[in-house]
């Protein structure tokens, strides 16, 4: 059984011991670092290859994010620009095959996040008669801050008929209860749910797609792709170093997001703590995904004042209505000259704000999507919402319940896909793998 290559990209014993060719991707990565040195970032070379400091690598396409750690990368990691998200159904009944695949996936993800080929041999180094163990489209590309994050859905534990699928039903956390039906949900079952999810984020879409494609290839016969989503243009910032981006409504999104720097809040709101549920989830986080179609054309012909009233923020600076700067706290009590609240009762910012939700917060790292047009000439576009939290029953569910009932923005939104996944803690060392504590 293969073991994770780990985050140390400088050692690759298999290449030198077996005399196999150094994978092209690695060779090119090293060459790329050399080029960066010419550009005056020589000091960063070693740090980049070894993963470096996450925050300092922000904004560069080339850096590698460490794979090993207490928590999975791809949650508080500064949000990359591109996403390929996939939900799989497990199609085997064989627990051993599922475990073997998770081990293989872990090893492949460790390699790919370091900028290497998915397999030990690589895209071009193997037998001519055998399919390559890497698909090759990332040859020559740097790691691009790729992160690969995995989660387990409720249906992995028990199937639709309530049967224990892999002898782990007793380990299903109470927090991993199916989400309730929210007002206005128009979910498509074929775009929702899934037994296992993988979120691949990178600053190069080709690198993110390469990661998902190779995991899907490795998983043939064990898992089957249920649905997947490409995203661009992160719609949140997860670090104070990042500017707040804009969603497809043209508004800044993620101003009040949980940030990587908020250590205390992250413990309280993001990471599962000892005693919250089964031990295998300690250090993990619960992921909610929602594909939210935006009715772009009707939004675009609504007046600026209405757009700002619905949002509760100004379109330009992102400041709460009645305040000046983006990060000013909204004043929900303020009344205008007409005696009405400056921030409307049904404004998005009010309903979603922690003050209105018993302090409940989320770490969002959603992405814009445009899946072409819908055949009626309208953009098939919107927000692929991604939120991590310690307990969705106390966070996403009450927040979304309020939003679904009252949010003025609902007129322009359609929720078409929904997913809930338990993302285990990070992979600790070369002997560890995704789900080890759950399956051992």
């Amino acid at each position, binding site marked *: 059984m293969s073991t994770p290559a780990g985050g140390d990209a400088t050692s690759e014993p298999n290449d030198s011991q077996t005399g196999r060719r150094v994978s092209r991707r690695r060779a090119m990565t090293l060459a790329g670092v050399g080029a960066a040195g010419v550009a005056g970032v020589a000091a960063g070379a070693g740090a980049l290859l070894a993963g470096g400091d996450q925050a300092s690598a922000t904004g560069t396409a080339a850096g590698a994010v460490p794979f090993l750690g207490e928590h999975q990368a791809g949650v508080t990691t500064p949000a990359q620009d591109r996403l390929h998200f996939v939900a799989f159904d497990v199609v085997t009944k064989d627990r051993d095959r599922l475990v073997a695949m998770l081990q293989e996936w872990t090893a492949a993800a460790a390699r790919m996040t370091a900028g290497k080929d998915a397999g030990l041999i690589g895209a071009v180094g193997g*037998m001519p*008669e055998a399919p390559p163990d890497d698909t090759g489209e990332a040859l020559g590309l740097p790691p691009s801050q790729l992160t690969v994050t995995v989660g387990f859905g409720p249906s992995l534990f028990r199937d639709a008929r309530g049967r224990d699928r892999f002898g782990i039903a007793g380990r299903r956390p109470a927090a991993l209860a199916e989400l309730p039906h929210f007002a206005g949900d128009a979910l498509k079952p074929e775009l929702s749910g899934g037994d296992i999810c993988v979120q691949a984020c990178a600053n190069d879409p080709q690198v993110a797609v390469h990661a998902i494609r190779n995991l899907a290839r490795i998983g*043939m016969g064990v898992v089957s792709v249920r649905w997947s989503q490409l995203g661009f243009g992160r719609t949140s910032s997860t670090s104070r170093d990042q500017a707040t981006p804009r969603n497809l409504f043209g508004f800044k999104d993620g101003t009040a997001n949980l940030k990587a720097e908020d250590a205390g809040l992250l413990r309280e709101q993001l990471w599962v703590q000892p005693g919250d549920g089964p031990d295998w989830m300690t250090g993990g986080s619960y992921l909610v995904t929602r594909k939210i179609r935006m009715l772009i054309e009707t939004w675009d012909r609504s007046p600026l004042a209405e757009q700002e009233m619905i949002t509760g923020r100004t379109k330009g600076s992102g400041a709460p209505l009645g305040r000046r700067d983006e990060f000013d706290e909204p004043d929900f009590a303020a009344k205008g000259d007409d005696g009405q609240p400056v921030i409307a009762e049904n404004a998005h910012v009010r309903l979603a704000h922690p003050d209105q939700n018993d302090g409940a917060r989320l770490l969002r790292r959603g992405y814009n999507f445009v899946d072409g047009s819908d055949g009626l000439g309208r953009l098939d576009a919107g927000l692929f919402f991604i939120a991590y939290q310690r307990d969705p029953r106390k966070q996403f569910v009450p927040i979304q319940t309020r939003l679904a009932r009252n949010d003025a923005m609902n007129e322009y939104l359609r929720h078409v896909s929904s997913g809930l996944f338990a993302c285990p803690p990070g992979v600790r060392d070369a002997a560890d793998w995704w789900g080890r504590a759950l399956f051992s």
Partner: protein
Amino acid sequence: MRTTRFVAPAAAGLLAVAGLAGCGGDGDADATAGGPIAVKATDSACEVGSTAIDAGQVTFKVTNSGSKVNEFYVYAAGDRVMGEVENIAPGLSRELRVELPAGTYETACKPGMSGRGIRGALKVSGTAASVAPDAALTEATASYQRYVRSQTAALLTKTEEFVAAVKANDVAKAKALYPVARTYWERIEPVAESFGDLDPKIDGREEVVEEGMEFTGFHRIEKDLWTTGDVSKDGPIADRLLVDVKAIVAKADAEKLTPLQLANGAKALLDEVASGKITGEEERYSHTDLWDFNANLEGSKAAVAALRPALEQRAPDLVKQLDSEFANVEVALGKHRAGDGWKLHTQLSKTDLKELSDSINALAEPVSKIAAAVAR
């Protein structure tokens, strides 16, 4: 019709595999160890006169007293075909002569010529020479060649019947024969496709037709049968089809494939299923894609089975995985039987197709590893 050709690798020379001289044991008719073993086949039973016999050449005399056309097979492990007789019409008897080393086998009658058949155990005892690794590869090609010949013979017979029905303007009969004749084609498609010029004439779909080329073959007649129901002008097309099929049968019978080609052919057949049959694009007028699906699957299995003794020496774990994945696809596909045939593609739900697609992907993965195991 595939878009990519069945590749005869330039590297085939790596494998010093000699074609088997002679090919086939039909010449030694008089060496039969005992009298013929009687097999009584009906629509619901398959009584084999003796189920524990001595190694050597064995003759079965199969009598079909049922109402459906029957077939009789002797299988080694993994459904490797040791011998078969096809097209035994009701009321007729046919003989099967087969060389059987000691081991455990299965016999099968297939009334209606479909499905796994009615199986029975057959124990063969006595001396059996063990097979050396390279000999196992040589035997694989010889074994597959026997399979190809059995299929080309049936292809010719069924195409003749189909062509006759078309020329007689018997639309109902032609429609019934169409997927049956194609079954034999689809089982050996990679072999047929290695003869590049004939394949598009016989099996080309409408979109392959380019300037200066005529749309002929099975799919041209399929279109007329299912869209207008008028084949009164298709006599020349039907004649041409038979001429082309005869040509390809002659070439296929003479073709010697390498073990690597068997391995790639087995994969190519599953790729056919994944790219053309799951989507329903192959049989867009008749929607008989599941017939082709099953035939591709059987053809792939036959190629893998021929390689089985070699694979058991080289990659025993792979053999286990292949067995279990072939079984999974058969179960998934088996849900869609309709009488002696198959449901139409249009009768399947999206969920059905996803399940079939998943099972084919799961099988194609280990099958894609055979070539490397063989080349090792």
